[in-house]
């Protein structure tokens, strides 16, 4: 090769080392100042400068998006007000790792529903799409008063979505937060129930919806804790990429129930991710 790199093997090795360190720093998000780096290695200056330019450009052109930004492509004005099939999206009500939930209107009937959309970018990844489909299938197969029912699923102009009952209420997390503020004693019983084994699942409060029941709660929001159904609607999110961490993080899950925990996780995980025999 007739490249103008120093023929000196020692210089070559040092150049590679500096570049490698720089790449590692770029990946860690702590790239050192270039001028400083060049000044520190004057013997490599020309070659190093050229190589650093290439490296920095590659990194800028192809660096992976930070987690959570993927959903940005379908956010806000792009979908709010849009019509997907029979549904007109009214407003965003929440978002998570697997999708964005909108309040929507079913056009012919005017019924209000919740519509969950798989972010466009996630649909590009066959695994995400498969998980989303598994989630729809699993959720549609479950019928229980405390699980949000799925009405329909579809794909419109490349946007995958499914339709659920719209639960008027708030997440269990915010109910608990309210309870804590108003009545610390009441809120703690949730954790006690878990420890006593009366609650069968570690509930992740942010994905659990508490349905408002009765007129009393609407009339007297200053008395939270009385108006919410005790058995909150549990929104089973099979196939969520963070499913494992959801369960793994649960602090109240004792050793005695370890076996059941494992079964749950394995079942959920394999149902959610298996594409072996589809």
């Amino acid at each position, binding site marked *: 090769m007739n490249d103008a*790199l120093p023929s000196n093997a020692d210089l070559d090795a040092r150049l590679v080392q500096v570049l490698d360190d720089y*790449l590692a720093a770029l990946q860690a998000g702590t790239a050192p100042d270039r001028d400083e780096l060049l000044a520190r290695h004057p013997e490599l200056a020309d070659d190093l400068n050229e*190589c650093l330019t290439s490296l920095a450009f590659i990194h800028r052109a192809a660096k992976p998006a930070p987690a959570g930004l993927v959903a*940005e492509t379908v956010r806000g004005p792009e979908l709010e007000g849009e019509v997907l099939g029979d549904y007109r999206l009214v407003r965003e009500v929440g978002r998570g790792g697997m999708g964005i939930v909108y309040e929507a209107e079913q056009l012919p009937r005017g019924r209000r529903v919740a519509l969950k959309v798989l972010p466009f970018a996630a649909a590009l990844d*066959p695994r995400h799409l498969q998980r989303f489909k598994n989630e729809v299938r699993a959720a549609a197969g479950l019928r229980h008063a405390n699980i949000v029912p799925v009405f329909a699923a579809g794909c419109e102009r490349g946007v995958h979505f499914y339709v659920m009952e719209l639960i008027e209420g708030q997440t269990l997390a915010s109910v608990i937060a309210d309870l804590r503020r108003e009545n610390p004693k009441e809120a703690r019983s949730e954790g006690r129930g878990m420890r006593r084994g009366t609650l069968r699942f570690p509930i992740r409060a942010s994905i659990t919806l508490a349905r408002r029941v009765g007129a009393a709660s609407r009339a007297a929001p200053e008395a939270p804790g009385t108006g919410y159904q005790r058995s909150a609607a549990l929104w089973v999110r099979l196939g969520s990429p963070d499913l494992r961490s959801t369960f793994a993080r649960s602090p109240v899950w004792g050793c005695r129930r370890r076996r059941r925990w494992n079964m749950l996780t394995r079942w959920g995980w394999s149902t959610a991710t298996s594409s072996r025999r589809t």
Partner: protein
Amino acid sequence: VIDSHVDRRETDVASLIEDARKALEGARERLLESYRNYLRLLARTGMDAALRDKADPSDLVQETLLKAYQHFGRFRGRSEAELTAWLRQILARNLTDLVRRYRVTEARQISRERSLERILEESSQSLGRLIAAPGSSPSEAAQRGELSVVLADALADLSDDHREVIVLRSLEEHEWDEVARRMDRSEGAARLLWARALKRLRPLIEARL
């Protein structure tokens, strides 16, 4: 330099998309052809070695461009970022079809070293992670989308070895022993090759900015 390039390119591409939509003579071909290198790089990183033995990434790209040409009427976007997202979607679908096709074949020959499922797993991982990544804001996404097209074009002009080492090390971020194994060289040789490739790449990038 990069930012002014991005602005200029944005207007160029937008007007070309407009022409292509109006079905002006040759506009559609010209527009889509300029993404061949980009798609090939994606296909290359999306298909791992075992799959590449069975199918040529260039065929996959050809198929993708053909479909894009035929169905251009369905493309609604105006910007390059939207166009590349659309092309990636077609490519990803073709890639999935391809893997599914081979999975059927594979089911008949049971004694394979690695399951194709794992190949799909890894493939889609790098495909999804590497370039299907939009930025934190629309403009940043557009910019990154364009820069990866520039990068793909520059890489296409490198020699095969140089391109391979950059893809393995800088894009797919393999450890050096793995890079060396895949390139059938010693680690020291692979590292040196990488430095040379980076040096060669710089003027190729600059010529496109």
